[in-house]
């Protein structure tokens, strides 16, 4: 395969991973909203958080090839996070696509000198929006009567406060048609908005990633001298 085709295939793989990762993120958001009884806020926060790998990969297409490595690492982190949810394998697939996309490069991707630690750091930072989401325990109970009326009920006894924990939920039905549901940790709007802000911050960091032009501002001159 000639160099041109290798490069084209690499970019195609990158795009495939971007779209797949974005679709998975959207799916998780929708599932959170429908099956998971999440709020619009939490669904957006989850979807945005899981879209970070695709965001990084998309930004990498614009003269930031070394950012694709960070995107790959972030996809692995997302896959680990979702490993039990069934959808995690998609992120491993995305990471694999990007790994091969990177391998399609005819030369190593030009990277800033601090990329060695910057990339894994960026991938680890992708966990921050998740931790923000579950930073505070907010238990909640609702009672749904037979006629569909929903009222909130006290969640006395559930632990609350600053503690990283994912929610556990339970529900019970009484013979009069009343359903009571409790979850030990709901996602509050402020948590979701904070998470979204963190995600936006990460995306911003991605856009600040040095371009190949910035890495080698005198590349044109240097190349001329090298080939003369």
């Amino acid at each position, binding site marked *: 395969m000639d160099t041109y085709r290798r490069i084209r295939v690499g970019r195609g793989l990158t795009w495939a991973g971007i779209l797949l990762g974005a679709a998975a993120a959207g799916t998780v958001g929708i599932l959170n909203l429908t099956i998971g009884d999440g709020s619009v806020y939490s669904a957006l926060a989850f979807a945005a958080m899981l879209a970070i790998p695709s965001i990084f990969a998309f930004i990498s297409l614009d003269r930031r090839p070394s950012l694709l490595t960070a995107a790959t690492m972030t996809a692995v982190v997302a896959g680990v996070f979702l490993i*039990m949810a069934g959808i995690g394998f998609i992120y491993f697939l995305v990471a694999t696509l990007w790994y091969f996309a990177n391998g399609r490069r005819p*030369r190593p991707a030009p990277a800033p000198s601090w990329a060695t630690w910057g990339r894994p750091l960026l991938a680890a930072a992708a966990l921050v929006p998740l931790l923000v989401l579950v930073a505070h325990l907010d238990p909640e109970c609702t009672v749904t009567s037979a006629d569909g009326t929903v009222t909130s*009920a006290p969640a*006395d006894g559930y632990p609350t406060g600053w503690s990283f924990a994912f929610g556990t939920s339970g529900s019970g039905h009484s*013979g009069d048609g009343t359903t009571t549901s*409790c979850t030990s940790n709901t996602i509050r709007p402020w948590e979701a908005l904070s998470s979204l802000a963190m995600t936006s911050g990460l995306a911003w960091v991605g856009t600040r990633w040095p371009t190949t*032009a910035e890495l080698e501002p005198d590349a044109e001159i240097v190349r001329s001298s090298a080939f003369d």
Partner: protein
Amino acid sequence: MTHDEIQDLLEAYVDDRLDRQTRREVDNHLKTCAECRAILDDVAPVDLHSVATSGFDQVSLRRMARRSVMRTAWSTVVLLIAGFLLMTILSALIYQPLIVNRGGRAADAARASIDVVSMINPGVMVVDGEIQSGLWNRTITLETVFPVGSSHLDLDPVEVRLGASALTGPGGAAPWPYLLDRDDVPDAGDRLSRLGAGTVATVQIQYVEESISLDQAQAIADDTDYDTRVVWAGFTLLESDTESMPIATAGYLGYGTCLGQEIFDDDLLGATSAGFGRSVGNALASITGALHSVVAALENLEGHPDWITNLTFHPGSASDAREAIDRLNSDPKVRTLVITGPSDELALQLEEIAGNDTTAQVLAVDFYNWVPGMCGR
């Protein structure tokens, strides 16, 4: 862009140094230009300019070597840290649950949980259990049956996590109240100690209601001095207007039996008392509604002193009671009204009202203290 200009850009194309627009133009040209693609193949393999920038004097080479060693060392350290973090996460998500579930601890946890649930909820019977390992904990789901007249809101759930237990005490107001102090229930603490150190178990309870069977209800009736025949036994009706949901109501009438049989025949009489208990936020309204139902039912019964009924009530379901009583109008055997209530106090209230308003015999039943022995409990 000309053919020559494109060729000048091929090096930058390989190294991803072109902006989107320029890259697109180069791409379009390469699609049709075999010569440029051949040049691209020559350009690609070696990054010569990186060598050229550093020069070749000894100092530079030494500096380059030092940087290279430092970079490799840094890479190794960072990779080790990243690997450690990744393994920690994987361990927490995958391996730890596997380890925790080893050695029959899950089964022990389930058994202990069943013991605790049964212990702190007199009359409740656990009929099935299921263990699921989740991301951060293990969940044991228990299927229970509980006394007629009570609802799942009356049950006290159990939560056990990593050596710490959380049990509810009696009278908790929340649907899932947790008491974090295991000393509140010393016996429960003893039983929970069977879980063993390091066990992770979260107990959630799903409640499946069952009422009493006809036979069991008849057995209750036989204990009295009255010659009664139970034509329906159950406790649940929809908390809705029967005019708007007649079919659902009928379904519920036949639903509440211990045996799971659908009983819905012409001589049926039934209303319900479910909801009398510690329903969230509406206990007072429930009692009031129930009393109205009783009065309405008794008014209907006044003209039929020989009826036998097993009459229970539901908040706001006076029309339900009326409908049920209307069905009994064709049954000449009815002569006793059995009122079931969730507490002594309420049962006495019902009995008093019944005594004032009707000539029918009234048997007040305290479900919470009397009925748990039914259904084999």
